């Protein structure tokens, strides 16, 4: 109710319904603006990727090779042309390729072509992979990527959510009893977060898979996948333990440490002292006087952390043989499969933008400045 009364101060003519509607409209407007800004950012980012990739004419070469392949195949199947001598057939192929190159606009200056590539890249319409195939045997880059996406999302989304809540609760717990043994342990362990997750992954594999042999070395399910859904899920969970543990170890101590310090600083604010003097229970103080005002900062930092973790995903998946986008990118490098590499960069840009957008929406929901219209004008 406090929020509504505050709003009423700003818009004295409004009855509560209008105020609620106003709040909703503001949040929607904010989210929409952010979405548009992010969409523009993604377009610019992908355009940069296209320019980087094509700097040595790589995309052009791929396209021309694809044209040559399709034209060659069509002509070799043509019965009438089969009777011609090979040199003549070659001449026809060259002619046809020339026509096709002109039709596709590959002879136009790069600045024009780059926009064609941009729309292709944005729609992930990157043609066919050179070496890699999807599990169903398709060479369509889009299908290959979409097939790998769920594995990556499963691993990272579950880890992010888990880490977020564990971090905050542990940090609150520690800030309540700072100076205790557990607190000292976390402070001492904070520097371990300098190493990325794949690094801990190697050690976890060494201990739990190689020495103790209780958990699998990698992969997502057992080699013949179990038949029943329940057994399948259990197998996936078992394979997730080590990668999730590696991701957690690499970030948990540092973030708990910084949250706990952050909460401690807020806990020494005057209004918190005041609340304490009033005799409010510590749970209420934590929720209303510490957690509530710090929530926007928490979310901003969480967003930055998530973005940082995406970067480590490529190698973590490679180390754990996790059949996601990261390992796909690694395989594509190994096979020098350029369409897949470009597409991976694009899809990572999408994922990052989506992460930022989701967190922006959450931000809009918790930041009172967005709701009451006092947007921070920088």
């Amino acid at each position, binding site marked *: 109710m406090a929020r509504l009364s505050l709003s009423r101060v700003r818009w004295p003519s409004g009855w509560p319904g209008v105020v609620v509607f106003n709040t909703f409209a503001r949040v929607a407007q904010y989210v929409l603006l952010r979405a548009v*800004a*992010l969409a523009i*950012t*993604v377009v*610019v*980012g992908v355009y*940069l*990727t296209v320019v*980087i*990739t094509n*700097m*040595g004419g*790589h995309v052009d070469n791929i396209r021309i090779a694809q044209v040559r392949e399709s034209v060659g195949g069509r002509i070799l199947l043509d019965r009438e042309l089969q009777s011609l001598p090979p040199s003549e057939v070659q001449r026809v192929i060259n002619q046809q390729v020339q026509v096709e190159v002109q039709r596709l606009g590959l002879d136009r200056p790069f600045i024009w072509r780059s926009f064609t590539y941009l729309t292709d890249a944005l729609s992930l319409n990157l043609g066919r992979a050179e070496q890699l195939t999807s599990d169903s045997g398709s060479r369509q880059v889009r299908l290959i990527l979409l097939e790998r996406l769920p594995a990556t999302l499963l691993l990272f989304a579950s880890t992010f959510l888990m880490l977020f809540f564990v971090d905050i609760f542990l940090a609150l717990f520690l800030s309540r009893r*700072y100076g205790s043994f557990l607190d000292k342990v976390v402070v001492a362990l*904070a*520097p*371990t*977060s*300098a*190493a*990325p997750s*794949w*690094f801990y992954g*190697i*050690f976890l*594999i*060494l201990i739990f*898979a*190689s020495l103790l042999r209780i958990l699998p*070395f990698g992969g997502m399910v057992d080699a013949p996948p179990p038949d029943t859904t329940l057994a399948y899920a259990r197998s996936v969970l078992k394979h997730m333990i080590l990668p999730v543990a590696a991701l957690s170890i690499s970030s948990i101590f540092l973030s708990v440490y910084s949250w706990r*310090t952050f909460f*401690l*600083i807020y806990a020494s604010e005057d209004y918190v002292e005041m609340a304490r003097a009033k005799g409010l229970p510590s749970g209420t103080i934590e929720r209303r006087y510490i957690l509530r005002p710090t929530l926007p900062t928490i979310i901003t930092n969480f967003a*930055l952390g998530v*973005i940082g973790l*995406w*970067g*480590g995903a*490529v*190698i973590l998946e*490679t*180390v754990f043989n996790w059949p996601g986008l990261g390992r796909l*990118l*690694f395989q594509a*490098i*190994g096979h*020098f499969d*350029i369409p897949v*590499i*470009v597409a*991976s*960069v694009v899809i*990572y*840009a999408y994922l*990052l*933008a989506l992460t*930022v957008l989701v967190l922006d929406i959450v931000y809009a929901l918790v930041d009172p400045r967005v709701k009451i219209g006092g947007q921070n004008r*920088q």
Partner: protein
Amino acid sequence: MMNSWREVPRYTSALVGLAIIAALVGLALYGIIAIPYGEAERLWRGGEGVWIDNPRNAQPGWVNLFPGRNLPETIIVDSREGATKRSGRGSDSVNTVQISLDFDYPYDDFPSELNLFFDARSRERPPHASLFWLTPDGRMLSLGEQNVESSERYSISLDRRLARQLGGQSPEVALFADPARESPQPLQGRYQLLVEALLFEAGTDLDARLVVYGKVHGLAGTDHLRRDITVALLWGAAVALAFGLLAAVGSSVTTLIIAAMGVWYGRWADASIQRITELNLILPALPILILVGTLYTRSIWVILGIVILLGVFSASIKVYRAIFLQVKESPYIEASQAYGASNRRIILFYMVPRVIPVLVPGFVTLIPSFVFLEASLAILGLSDPVLPTWGKVLNDAQQNGALYKGYYYWVLGPAMLLMLTGLGFALVGFTLDRIFNPRLREL
């Protein structure tokens, strides 16, 4: 500022961190001095020609310090260096040479490989050699005979015929096994390989060198190409520190100056810097580095340049901006404007130095993250093609299933050094953070 620096020695964690960093710098310097650049390159790309006397996948020497472990080291016996060599006259201008390659074998495990290298100097007819193996308990086994071309390698442990003759066991096991025992156990004592050769021409000479490859080598062991991992660990330290330091300096100093410029000039400069920062946040840095590594070059210096470029517009620009916005309004800036200081002077000499206390802790913790970035790229096979680095060793280990096959040392060496680097810089960085940000100090 100076007072803050003086406080550093009061923190144990900072001292530990500094000690670790000093040790790493020492290691890197030793590496550069002991193995010059060209030599490191030659050694790491040398292949069999350079490393032929090393065992494959040997463990580091210190494993023998564990009680009950007595793994063999590599033994080399050469007829040119000490082994007895007797020449004699046979009939019809045929000379004989008898080379006796003796060595003591005091170890509890079998060697990993046996190679015999010949060096024959003849014009037309190559010498003919018969080989005999004498064990400490007095048995004599024939290892067959062969014509020896100029410089030939006889891989005893790969000789299938010999293996069949010795009862199916691989030669390096069968030749050293104690026949009295049920399970194969090496017999300790003095072994002898006898080379009896017939030389058919005058002026012909023959030398032989026996290499009994051990199972331990050097301080860090060897990899699948017989290379001594110590070389990579030493040079890796130099590369890692240089990369981390340059990338951190490059990106953080530029970030600072750009943030200051944005705030000082304001308006469109500020706005565009803000927008670029937001754009950069969404650019997937690692995939872009991978793209560059795959399509253009893997040179570590180009990658370094791109890392700096991508790091310039990092999220910390927003932190600096907030501070600069306050600094800009300070009276001393107004004063400097009044006496006509140039924009450049104000930015570089009056604004930037104010933020350095905030910068320093972050800068120190940034270094290991770049060291790990280099290792990450190497893990993906995108490291510098020439220089040996820690990440490259990890990549080799990963590619060859080191953990699966139990070559733990291969991973542990570089991993420990990486961890030490991270720990050292993080400890110092955390302490500096406490010193420079007084609000943290009482916590």
